[in-house]
């Protein structure tokens, strides 16, 4: 009955880790935030907060420009 039972970690994964901004050079981790086709996961799907979803978006797009990640796979 207590509230503790429902105490779930609701923050996004980067908030939990204490990451401020993502890095476009870190391709290994950015790949995991995209689908097999190379599309970005939605905010709902990835569970990221607004701040970190923006950061993911920016870094994936930078990585795509430098041909580190595909636009279409």
């Amino acid at each position, binding site marked *: 009955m207590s509230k503790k039972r429902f105490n779930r970690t609701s923050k996004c*994964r980067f908030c939990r*880790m204490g990451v401020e901004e993502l890095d476009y*050079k870190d*391709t290994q981790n950015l790949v995991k935030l995209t689908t097999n086709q190379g599309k970005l996961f939605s905010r709902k799907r990835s569970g990221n907060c607004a701040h970190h979803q923006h950061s993911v978006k920016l870094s994936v797009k*930078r990585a*795509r420009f*430098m*041909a*580190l*990640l595909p636009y279409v796979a």
Partner: protein
Amino acid sequence: MYEGLFLIDNTHASMEWDNVVKHIHDILQKNGAEILKTEKWGEKKLAYKIKGHKRGTYLLIHFNTKSGAITAIKRDFQLSDYIIRSLIVKDDKIEEVSQIGVIEPIPARNTGATPEIKDAELLEKTDMAINVTGEA
């Protein structure tokens, strides 16, 4: 503090690497930049073809300059024959943490294995994987 990533034509990179690095340094220094760090990533396969190139060599340079100089620097790099593509990003806190997974070439298992994993598993695995790198 700026961070520039340059994609260099492989034919030039393998033949005359020192010249290419000097050429890039010259462009930066001509525009009053102070070079802090130069790092070669080595040859990599590109995610897609750029002007017919399938492979390229990456060079990462950290430098300091006035904000007004950036447009001139960018234009000079666009005119250069050696450089296929360049990206200059402002970064006030260039940390050691930002280097994770970059200095070493990406292991083969990560490029091949992860796309096949089903979505639910993928999220869990990524969570774990990111945590590991975060702690390290």
